[in-house]
């Protein structure tokens, strides 16, 4: 169980990126965090990953507080962030340096096969397409068998077709070991396809606005009426989250809203 207990983050420049964010995420659950820009969704993910420390609050995973990168937590970024000096296979095996060479080779080969890139094992990252590179990043994160996998807008840089392909692919991979997925996205479609629960966030300061359980059966049909209805529900929640966002005086002044009086 991953718990976020009143987590908040204030940056040194005084920006309140995240405020009193509390949620409990079951093992194996897929949670999508969605919201407009500046709602603290990436801040939230980086705090869980241990890359940035939360200013207050606690993030226990199975009772153990996460304050630094943890072996049970993996992350996939918006960009593949492959190491350009390592072959595709070595990139995937990057987090397996504790294993013996033959064991590592087997695990990497299996991961490559799962993402359908066995023929690219010896290629350099520069020789891959955007979609292939992101597949390698997914394989690199999953090959260490994390209990929690964080995804920070992982498909947003890809074209619509590749994005759909990788969303389905991610679900296939997830179903094998069923790690907890926490996915940050601004694509409502993506959230509804993947998630068991969607957390709609509200900007300035970033706060949880509404949690929506998605009970659609998998695999989900993107063209079904139920899918559309669910999407509309999320979009409405998003709209309301923006309407009800407390006007932050500093941000409003910046935007020129303070001119009316």
């Amino acid at each position, binding site marked *: 169980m991953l718990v976020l207990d009143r987590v908040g983050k204030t940056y040194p420049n005084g920006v309140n990126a995240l405020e009193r964010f509390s949620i409990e995420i079951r093992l194996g659950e897929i949670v999508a965090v969605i919201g407009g820009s500046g709602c603290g969704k990436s801040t939230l993910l980086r705090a869980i*990953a241990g*890359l940035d420390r939360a200013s207050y609050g606690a993030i226990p995973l199975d009772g153990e507080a996460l304050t*630094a*990168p*943890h*072996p049970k937590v*993996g*992350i996939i*970024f918006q*960009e593949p*962030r492959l*190491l*350009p*000096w*390592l072959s595709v296979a070595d990139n995937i095996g*990057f*987090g397996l*340096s504790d294993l013996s060479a033959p064991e590592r080779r087997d695990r990497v080969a299996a991961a490559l096969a799962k993402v359908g890139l066995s023929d690219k094992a010896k290629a*350099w*990252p*520069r020789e891959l397409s955007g979609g292939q590179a992101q597949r390698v990043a997914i394989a690199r994160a999953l090959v*260490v068998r994390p209990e929690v996998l964080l995804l920070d807008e992982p498909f947003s840089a890809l074209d619509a077709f590749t994005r759909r392909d990788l969303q389905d692919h991610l679900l296939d991979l997830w179903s094998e070991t069923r790690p907890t997925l926490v996915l940050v996205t601004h694509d409502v479609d993506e959230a509804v396809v993947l998630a068991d629960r969607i957390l709609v966030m509200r900007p300035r300061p970033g706060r949880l606005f509404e949690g929506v359980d998605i009970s659609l059966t998998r695999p989900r049909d993107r063209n079904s009426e139920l899918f559309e209805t669910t999407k509309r529900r999320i979009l409405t929640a998003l709209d309301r989250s923006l309407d009800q966002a407390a006007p932050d005086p500093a941000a409003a002044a910046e935007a020129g809203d303070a001119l009316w009086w």
Partner: protein
Amino acid sequence: MTMTLDTPVESIQSLAPQSAARWRRWTRPALGLLLPLTVAAAWEWAVAAGWSNGRLVPPPSTVMSTINELARSGELVRHMAITLERVGAGFALGVAAGTVLGAISGYWELARRLLDPTVQALRAIPSIAWVPLFILWLGIFELSKVALIAVGVFFPIYLGVMGAILSVDRKIVEVGRTFRLSGPAMIRRILLPAVLPAYVVSLRVGLGLGWMFVVAAEFMGASEGLGYLLIDGQQLGKPAQILAAIVIFAILGKTTDWLIEIAAMPFLRWQDAFAPSRGAF
């Protein structure tokens, strides 16, 4: 009158891709040689035709025969060996010091604040200005010469290493952090490979400066070395000997630079560069 352009175009197209590649492989370096060879041939011809006596600017044939003479008497090897030795020793010292201090300054902020302003101030001093002090401190012989070369090599290496470490992509470093790399592992697995391309460039710049400073060092009183050949040629009015030494400098400088490039190539094959680096020969 009609011009028939068809024939050459067809003959080019009929070249198989392989032979075309081979053709390019040989014509590219040849293209670079075209200008110097033309100038040399023109000068040779001008002297032979009697337009100049070639006394102050000897024709290539005279320079070549001077090199031949020096080679036959064994002088050339002796002068080349001692100059190479000086450059080698000074380069090694400069690279070692520049790499260590550059790495410390790049990696550790406190050290950078302490160290970097002083190094930058020292860098602003023309290195030749150290010559009198080095002679006083280290004597007129080898040590002062090697020290001067090392000073010249040090700065580009120091700057290159520090700058490369400071500009390593934060996103790549974060990948290392998410896999919980220890400090040494982070250096070995992320920082070293990331700074390698810039390091090779600074090695090449440093080597170039090493060759520049060996001449300065050998001007300050040497009895052997290629720099000595230059001074000797000036004092005894032997321009052919001066040009011979200059040609040898060019060949040695280019060859050593090429050796660094060749040695680095296997480690830099991953680079997604605009033009893949390849040996010039």
